């Protein structure tokens, strides 16, 4: 596992787009991890009367918002929230997708048919609407539940991908011989099939991170994602909407943060895919 992570990083770094993506992403992650203790409290509203909607200056790098809160500090803290939600939700959705795809693909028969019809139905509803349905009946949405909801609505495509790979691999000699030697199903699934779907799974994981960051920002923009006063990029854009003319920096900063993060993640995903599947590019 450690070896394959190192390999993935190496092939990504070898490509220019992958290298750019990794560098931007590293800067964002390091900033999100290390900067917060040095910054002002993102929830503090020091001077609403005189200090609101100030343009960028020496004490506020990116200015202040309508409640006199420091925009830079909120963007950095927002990165923490966005990345945490993305990491949690994607870990969940990829695990679910991999497990269901592996089992359905290897078991075949009615388990496979049932799971795939379910996936067909679920994929007929755009993910945003699935989440809107969940949000519509909830009183309030704590962060853990948001992660759970986004994760549980994201595994359908992954399971299809993994299943298709398994259908191909299970015909190969080494799986046949493992079966002939009497290996248990669990052993075949985890020792023989899983390692061989890790490549496509890694690509799916990176691309899913970008999707989830956009999705979470969108939900927060609709007021259904990360709840205030916790800073989030989508929530900041929602707050800044009325001030787009008088104080454009309040919405530009979080928007640029979203674009940069999603772009860097997608660049890594592209590089990884090209490295693992040299057919295109």
């Amino acid at each position, binding site marked *: 596992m450690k070896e394959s992570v190192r390999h993935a990083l190496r092939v990504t770094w070898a490509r220019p787009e992958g290298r750019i993506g990794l560098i931007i992403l590293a800067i964002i992650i390091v900033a999100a991890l290390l900067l917060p203790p040095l910054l002002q409290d993102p929830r503090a509203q020091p001077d609403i009367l005189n200090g609101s909607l100030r343009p960028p200056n020496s004490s506020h790098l990116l200015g202040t918002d309508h409640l006199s809160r420091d925009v830079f500090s909120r963007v950095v803290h927002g990165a923490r929230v966005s990345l945490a939600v993305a990491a949690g939700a994607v870990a969940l959705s990829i695990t679910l997708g991999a497990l269901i795809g592996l089992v359905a693909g290897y078991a075949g028969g009615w388990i496979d048919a049932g799971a795939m*019809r*379910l996936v*067909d*139905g*679920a994929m*007929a*509803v*755009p*993910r*945003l*609407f*699935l989440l*809107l*349905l*969940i*949000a*519509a*009946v*909830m*009183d309030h949405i704590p962060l853990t539940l948001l992660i759970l909801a986004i994760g549980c609505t994201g595994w359908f495509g992954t399971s299809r991908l993994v299943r298709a790979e398994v259908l191909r691999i299970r015909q190969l000699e080494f799986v046949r011989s493992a079966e002939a030697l009497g290996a248990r199903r669990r052993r075949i699934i985890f020792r023989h099939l899983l390692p061989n779907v890790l490549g496509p799974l890694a690509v799916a994981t990176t691309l899913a991170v*970008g999707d989830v960051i*956009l999705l979470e*920002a*969108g939900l927060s*923009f*609709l*007021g*259904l994602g990360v709840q205030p006063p916790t800073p989030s990029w*989508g929530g900041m*854009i929602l707050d800044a*909407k009325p001030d*787009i*003319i008088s104080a*454009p920096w309040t*919405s*530009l900063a*979080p*928007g640029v943060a*979203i*674009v*940069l*993060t*999603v*772009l860097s993640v*997608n*660049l890594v995903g*592209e590089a990884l895919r090209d490295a693992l599947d040299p*057919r*295109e590019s």
Partner: protein
Amino acid sequence: MSWAFRRMLQAFATFLVAVVLMFFLMRLAPGDPLSRLGDERPFPPAALAALRARYGLDQPLLTQFRAFVKPLARGDLGISIQHPDHSVNSLIAERLPATLLLGGTVLLINFTLGTWLGAWQAFRRGSKTDHLLTIFTLLLYATPSFWLGLVLVWLLGTEWHLLPVAFMHDPLLSPDAGPLTRFTDLLRHLILPAATLSLVTIAATVRYQRAAILDVLQLDFIRTARTKGLQERQVRWRHAWRNAIGAVLALFGLWLPLLVAGSVFVESVFAWPGLGTLAAEAIGTRDYPVIMGSTILVSAVVVLGSLLADLAHRWLDPRLREG
């Protein structure tokens, strides 16, 4: 049984699974659609119980499901909680034209400009324009639609006062304005929302089409066509382009969900009176029959879209019919 008939049955089954899934997702989440009523002011428990009874929320889950599916089979989506004198059908019907206009425009732009741009880029693979376009589409692909909409409002609408930034019509337009004035007014209002939604969705179309054309360009018959001495123009547009049509059609099926989700954000940024704003309003007021109704409609459109794409693909591509 013919292939088309089986494919239609499958589409119908998919839609049914989606509906069942939606219903249970909503009812299994903690809380029910009425539990928020007491949030803002105290709500007598007796009145709450009466409302629960009225909407059948006190019944067992299976009874509720039956009560939900029966009218649905007749095409009846129920009654709005927020507007008790309106059916969900009438609310949706009122908003549908605006969404069809916006979505149709965006669809048209994607399938003309988007696919052409993707092909054009593929034919120039490795060139400077190819790299520039790749960077541009990757940037757009990473841009949230609601944010792009706001930025366009800021630049084009309020900095330079070029275009109207909200609604479908000018509210100050005189009621006896001629049809031409009305039409140009509508077009001017359409530009910003349509541009926003087209920009964020066209990135996917261009990238997809580029990859599809590159796949075709590697095949043997392209080399044959070139060695036959055909002009590059003919090789490109008559051979490569035509054989990548299947990919374009497949994209149509994949792509509708993207358009629908995008329209929720774009419509709400531009106050475009379509289904997206209806859904956004319904979320604000937790009007779950409206949310449910729009979601059902959306998945019907998605299922139908991918069915039509499959049927058209088979009709256009004789290779699929033989195998």
